[in-house]
């Protein structure tokens, strides 16, 4: 990802500027800049929304994208949104990645937060003081996460920037030909009037002298020509021939390599290092004690790693030496017993209904810690010279990376340049930039350019994990079997994000959803879809329990309860219908269904699962229905849905980071299992274009798959999966003569 050439910070602040003979249109919403007109939900000065488009004299249009590319393809979609409003020739449109400067702060995140569309993810919190949340502070975010790229940068930035640029082109042409702007047509980057025409490039210099419009009109969906068509992603060609540059691929003149070993016990410190143990090993330059970690620097990576493995180092375990997974879950159970928690949702009087009920259905669920396991292990290359710092890495939040690097050695962030690279997977992990300060400190210590590469073992054992949490449900069914009270009492370990994750869309009159805040010692971070991962498993498993308790079809049960949520209902119906819900299946197979709304999108999934006599679980296929509002690039939405399913299914079947003695027990892909092609189900994606507010696609595919599979396994085994991963269970097919309360949507037996 190149930095953006000659455009300096100063010129970026100009709006509608002439740069290199072409036009740069910048959008922002602070008072002295372009205003976005009456549809803005924000008051003047509240928010800067920065989106930039360059039109060069050779008729190329370049969108400048403030997000990182980690495989979601949203940058192609963002450029499509710009091109659509500009009526640009898609073949002449490209994008560049924005540098890590505050002008590119992803204020969409902040805006979404204020509008209540999306919570600012927990990983943003180190950057934002929420005790007096002001949007100005949220401006320090430049995040790719929370599935915000299309929903916010695209809808509020790219489309408007495109419309503004188009308007300026039209007015420039009108002035040149002395005609009324309303008589001018624009198509494929060409502006025309009768027999006269000019390209965007030819008009760019004249257009740059005009004021950008205050309130450019946006197209109606029915006018879209490019949005909604499947387009090849522009980032793909370099990914098939080895030329794509990831952080780990950086090479600088005079560069040396660092391998690192961190205290295995969280919170531990280096007690002693016997440097003599690696005396004479080839290529070793220095051993660096970072306090909680030790790094060996050598002229080659393999030499650094070999020496590190041989190095005699002892750690003090510190306060967490006795922490185990069991001790953490036990602390949750103890706390739930004594702590009513704080109200997240209180509607009606669930407590009273439950107290008066003759029969109360109760259940408890739990999920484990999970690692992200990005395919590219954490790495960062750093140069520290004359008080200036340069870093090369793949960061989901380059602006925060700049701050982390600056703080590591106490320099001003203005002295740090982030050269952001392609990310070999992000999933939330690369918003936490612990490896960046390490690289910067090592580089300062050795006075040479240093590439720090974590081993897979370090990556697995020193993640910011999806939290292990648990909950307790109570519900009461009415005479018709439908729930009249829903109580969810859940543990929240500071990752209760986004705020809507524990909510249910089902029309249940009395709801009590209460969170019990707790501390625990394992480092936590956002993990693809954040709180939805656990809450979807909890809620969609328990609603399934209620359906079976009522003797009703779990699909029809959900459908009835979604009477007041037509978008959800449509997605649920689409998934069920496309999956052939209720039609016969081969013996030994069953379907399970689940639905979840997250990041503004709704996804329902039907999993077709079998369970062998020997207890082998196989997920044969998954039918996915998704409503992202408008799918800008449908083929990319499809691949994100498939991606989300595989990520969620890996976790549901296998994912289990366990703690013993305060340290993670898993190390690498041999003991932290991954799904391979052989276990990957066939996935069919059905896009429901409701045209409603645009939501994200990167995360919403992940939450429903776990409960969908678990619900199918209940039908097959008679056993309710209450704790993930599924591999912990010794499941066997139930005796089909002995009737399960009901087995709907399944094979005729």
């Amino acid at each position: 990802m190149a930095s953006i050439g000659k455009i300096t910070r100063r010129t970026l602040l100009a709006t509608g500027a002439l740069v290199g003979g072409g036009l740069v249109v910048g959008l922002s919403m602070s008072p002295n800049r372009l205003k976005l007109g009456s549809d803005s939900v924000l008051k003047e000065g509240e928010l800067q929304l920065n989106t930039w488009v360059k039109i060069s004299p050779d008729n190329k249009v370049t969108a400048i994208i403030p997000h990182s590319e980690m495989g979601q393809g949203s940058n192609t979609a963002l450029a499509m949104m710009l091109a659509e409003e500009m009526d640009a020739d898609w073949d002449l449109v490209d994008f560049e990645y924005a540098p890590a400067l505050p002008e590119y702060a992803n204020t969409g995140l902040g805006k979404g937060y204020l509008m209540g569309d999306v919570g600012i993810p927990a990983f943003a919190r180190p950057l934002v003081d929420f005790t007096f949340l002001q949007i100005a502070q949220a401006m320090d975010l430049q995040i790719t996460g929370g599935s915000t790229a299309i929903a916010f940068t695209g809808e509020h930035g790219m489309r408007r920037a495109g419309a503004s640029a188009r308007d300026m082109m039209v007015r420039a042409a009108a002035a040149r030909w002395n005609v009324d702007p309303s008589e001018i047509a624009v198509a494929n980057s060409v502006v025309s009037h009768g027999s006269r025409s000019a390209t965007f490039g030819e008009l760019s210099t004249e257009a740059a002298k005009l004021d950008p419009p205050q309130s450019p009109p946006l197209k109606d969906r029915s006018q879209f020509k490019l949005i909604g068509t499947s387009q090849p992603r522009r980032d793909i060609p370099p990914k098939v021939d080895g030329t794509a540059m990831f952080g780990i691929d950086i090479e600088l003149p005079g560069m040396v390599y660092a391998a690192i070993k961190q205290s295995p016990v969280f919170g531990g410190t280096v007690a002693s290092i016997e440097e003599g143990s690696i005396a004479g090993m080839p290529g070793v330059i220095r051993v660096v004690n970072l306090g909680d970690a030790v790094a060996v620097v050598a002229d080659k990576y393999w030499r650094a790693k070999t020496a590190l493995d041989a190095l005699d180092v002892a750690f003090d375990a510190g306060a967490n030496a006795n922490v185990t997974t069991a001790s953490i879950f036990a602390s949750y159970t103890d706390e739930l017993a004594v702590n009513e928690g704080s109200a997240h949702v209180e509607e009606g009087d669930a407590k009273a209904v439950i107290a008066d009920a003759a029969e109360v259905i109760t259940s408890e669920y739990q999920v484990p810690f999970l690692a992200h396991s990005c395919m590219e292990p954490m790495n960062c290359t750093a140069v520290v010279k004359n008080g200036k710092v340069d870093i090369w890495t793949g960061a989901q939040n380059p602006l925060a990376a700049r701050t982390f690097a600056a703080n590591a050695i106490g320099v001003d962030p203005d002295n740090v340049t982030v050269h952001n690279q392609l990310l070999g997977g992000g999933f939330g992990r690369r918003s936490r930039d612990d490896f960046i300060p390490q690289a910067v400190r090592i580089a300062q210590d050795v006075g040479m350019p240093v590439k720090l590469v974590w081993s897979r073992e370090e990556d697995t054992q020193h993640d910011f994990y999806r939290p292990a949490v648990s909950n307790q449900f109570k519900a009461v069914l009415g005479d018709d079997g439908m729930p009249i009270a829903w109580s969810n009492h859940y543990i929240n370990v500071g990752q209760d994000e986004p705020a809507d994750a524990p909510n249910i869309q089902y029309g249940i009159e009395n709801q009590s959803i209460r969170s019990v805040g707790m501390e625990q010692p394992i480092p936590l971070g956002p993990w693809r879809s954040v709180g939805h991962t656990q809450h979807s498993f909890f809620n969609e498993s328990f609603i399934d329990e209620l359906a079976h308790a009522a003797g009703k079809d779990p699909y029809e049960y959900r459908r009835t309860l979604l009477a007041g949520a037509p978008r959800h209902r449509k997605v649920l119906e689409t998934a069920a219908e496309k999956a052939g819900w209720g039609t016969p299946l081969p013996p030994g197979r069953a379907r399970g269904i689940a639905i979840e709304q997250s990041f503004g999108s709704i996804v329902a999934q039907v999993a077709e699962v079998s369970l062998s006599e020997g207890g082998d679980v196989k997920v044969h296929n998954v039918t996915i229905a998704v409503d992202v509002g408008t799918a800008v690039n449908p083929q990319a939405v499809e691949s994100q849905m498939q991606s989300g399913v595989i990520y969620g299914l890996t976790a549901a079947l296998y994912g289990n980071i366990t703690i013993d003695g305060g340290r993670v027990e898993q190390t690498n892909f041999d003991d932290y299992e991954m799904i391979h092609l052989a276990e990957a189900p066939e996935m069919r994606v059905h896009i429901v274009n409701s045209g409603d507010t645009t939501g994200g696609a990167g995360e919403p595919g992940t939450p429903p798959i776990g409960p969908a599979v678990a619900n199918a396994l209940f039908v097959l085994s008679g056993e309710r999966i209450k704790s993930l991963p599924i591999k912990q269970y010794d499941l066997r097919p139930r005796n089909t003569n002995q009737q399960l309360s009901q087995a709907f949507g399944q094979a005729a037996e």
Partner: protein
Amino acid sequence: MAFTLKVNGETHTVDVEPDTPLLWVLRDEIGLKGTKYGCGIAACGACTVHMDGAAERTCVLPVEAAEGYEITTIEGLASGGQLHPVQEEWIRNQVPQCGYCQSGMIMAVAALLAENPNPTDQDINDTITNVCRCGTYQRVRDSIHELSDA
């Protein structure tokens, strides 16, 4: 120690410890960064190259064992300015997401199809055991079938 390797048709002499994995020799000595490190224990396939046409995981392969082979990395898969059919299909079907695993995935698939131009699903399951954390498996399978003879 000096070792002579034939990589993408060129001969390279490298001076490294004999147990240095071929992966790090390719990346850090020869400068071919397309071959990736994912696990270091032969469990993910990110480091797959061809040795005399067969797919090999290089993160556990000592350089001393790589002498004498025709080694092809992702950078050498295209020939005469023409992408390999697997690479072309990967673009057509938009297979890569983050892309990090795809060098190894493409090399594994190219080796499979060279050996078995019409693999069954079972053949694919048995042979393509690369890990892709982005979950591109559906398109990988579809593309292998697309490339098959039948």
